[in-house]
């Protein structure tokens, strides 16, 4: 709990303003903490006289921490391909493994996925654990979780990384709970601390308004889901050598309580633009409905969806569900790329809470540049194709 040293406290009130929960306040001549305290530690960091500290009676610790070695990645397979995020994880996983001087392994569950082992090794894996069974062809939380749990228990890696995708964010928290490991969601930055080899995991919180760095000091493995499109995949090296191991799957492991009745792939117009993390939006500057072919291409390159300004919707270039702004939807994606949108207030109110706004516009004085994180001044018909080209090159 939070301990306040009344001898040291000067009643300056800095702790009061530092607390996001209104849990600490200065009463008479000393700070007082209430039940609302979440032990976040913000006040401890801000106290100028060191009057505050957090004491934990009995921190739960794990005895065999030293036995956990190596970096492990959970690779996702769905609809006949390995998800791009898996290669991104191998990219960062390789760097972490090299820094720690340990091996990088990857677990790939699926129906028949042996064919992908080579690609995973070329992308940086030293060991591939193939978990093949017909029931794993489709994603089922229970079976996937049990398979991962078994591999982790046997291999004891110090770090486990998964994609912050629908599959990763669904199954990994279950696994982390099952093996009593710490898990950090949706990381955007990972690094190893030199002194003690701790994994420092950085992620956004409060809708991206705050960044937090998190560590797991007392438990292993240290688990994290990583936001797709953040880490760079390594340049594939077909000459790399690695080991492929088939995971033994006893019958009880592959019995699922979940029946998959149907799998539906959305068409573009069914995508809810409020739910996706990347939006590429087109406006009046497209000049014609054909422009949206280009917008779509960029969106699919980024794994995002297509949005539009009212001008584009009113011109009949794209249907209303794509409209962002005062009379359309309010969106807050991680990345919003506005192409040929002037950025009048009525559009801005619908998208200004996006984490990163990229503006592409001919007109240097367009108001969109006032709210953009990055601005490219130029003809979108030149800029967007060039951007697509560069993104494709990077992917290769």
């Amino acid at each position, binding site marked *: *709990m939070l301990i306040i040293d009344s001898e040291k406290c000067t009643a300056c009130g800095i702790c009061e303003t*530092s*607390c*996001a*929960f209104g849990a600490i306040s200065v009463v008479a001549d000393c700070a007082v903490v209430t*039940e609302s*305290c979440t032990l*976040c530690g913000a006040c401890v960091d*801000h106290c100028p006289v060191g009057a505050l500290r*957090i004491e*934990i*009676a*009995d921190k*739960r610790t794990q005895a065999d921490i030293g036995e956990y070695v190596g970096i492990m990645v959970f690779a996702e397979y*769905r*609809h006949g391909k390995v998800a791009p995020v898996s290669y991104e994880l191998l990219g960062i996983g390789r760097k972490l493994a090299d820094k720690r001087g340990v091996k990088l392994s990857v677990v790939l569950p699926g129906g028949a996925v042996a064919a992908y082992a080579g690609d995973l090794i070329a992308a940086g894996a030293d060991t591939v654990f193939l978990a093949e069974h017909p029931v794993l062809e*489709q*994603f089922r*939380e229970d079976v996937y*979780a049990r398979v991962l749990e078994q591999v982790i228990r046997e291999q004891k890696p110090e770090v486990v990384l998964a994609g912050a995708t*629908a*599959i990763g*964010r*669904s*199954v990994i*928290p*279950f696994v*982390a709970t099952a093996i009593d*490991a*710490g*898990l950090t*969601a*949706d990381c*955007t930055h990972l690094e190893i601390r030199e002194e003690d080899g701790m994994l*420092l995991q950085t992620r*956004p*919180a409060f*809708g991206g*308004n*705050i*960044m937090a*760095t998190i*560590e*797991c*000091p007392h438990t292993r493995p240290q688990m994290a889901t990583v936001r797709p499109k953040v880490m760079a995949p390594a340049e594939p090296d077909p000459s790399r050598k690695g080991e492929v191991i088939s995971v033994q799957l006893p019958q009880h492991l592959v019995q699922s*309580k*979940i029946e*998959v009745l149907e799998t539906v792939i*959305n068409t573009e117009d069914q995508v809810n633009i409020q739910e996706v993390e990347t939006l590429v939006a087109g406006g009046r500057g497209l000049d014609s409905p054909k422009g949206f072919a280009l917008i779509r291409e960029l969106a699919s390159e980024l794994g995002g969806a297509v949005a539009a300004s009212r001008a584009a919707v009113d011109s009949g270039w794209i249907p209303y569900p794509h409209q962002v702004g005062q009379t359309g939807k309010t969106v807050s994606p991680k*990345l919003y790329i506005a192409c040929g949108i002037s950025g009048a207030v009525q559009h801005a109110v619908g998208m200004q809470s996006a984490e*990163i706004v990229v503006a592409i516009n001919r007109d240097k004085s367009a108001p969109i540049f006032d709210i*953009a994180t990055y*601005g*490219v001044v130029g003809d979108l018909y030149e*800029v967007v194709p*060039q*951007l697509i080209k*560069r*993104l494709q090159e*990077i992917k290769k």
Partner: protein
Amino acid sequence: MKIIVCVKQVPDAKDVRLDPKTNTLAREGVDAIMNPYDRHALEEAVAIKEKQGGTVTVITMGPPQAETVLREAIACGADDGVLISDRAFAGADTWATAYTLAKAVQTLGGADLILCGKQAIDGDTAQVGPGLACRLQVPYATCVQKTRNVTATTIEVERMMDDGFDVLRLPLPALITVVKDINEPRVASLKGKMKAKKAAIRQLSAAAIGADPQCIGLAGSPTQVVRVFPPEPRGNRKIFSGSVEEQVEQLVACLKAHL
């Protein structure tokens, strides 16, 4: 059918900012609200109850003032609310939260169906739902955009995937987490508000749920926040110049550093 909905009181995330000068959270004018996703979980629970019969119990882990969201839930159709509150719960991460909620659910005698919001808007982790399912050893589905065909023994759901959705059938008891698309939450009725005002809220302490002190709160949390800092401010915006190729190159470099 016995339904339990897990809700959380959160600061209204859109108002939360870190003061870049002092590196402190600016909390002035930030309201405490029911996590928006949880409102959808509650609405779905009440809708299922209205069709199937049964009870909806809302639980929350939090400080005493989190009672407000329980009363709000009762006004919106829940039958009763349980506040899981103890100083010892403070500082819980998702692992410890899932442990605590599981203990509470077991103390309440379990449930046929447990609903949670997809994630809370303060942490955005989406980890407590699956963690709770693990502790309770029930099948689960996350990011449910529609429930269909709820019977006394099974539930069919549409689970959102990155590229579409899967239709699943789970045996009960089960746990689902829901996205906002699933329904339109109702506005609390006047009669509901009167009932909520008078409702007795049951309180459960760490001892009451039989929690192991090493598994709750900060002590039980494997993860620790070691640093909080503001994201690169929008104020540092960069308007590139040069040829299209040069500008795109700079953009790609910046996006890589950011994302």
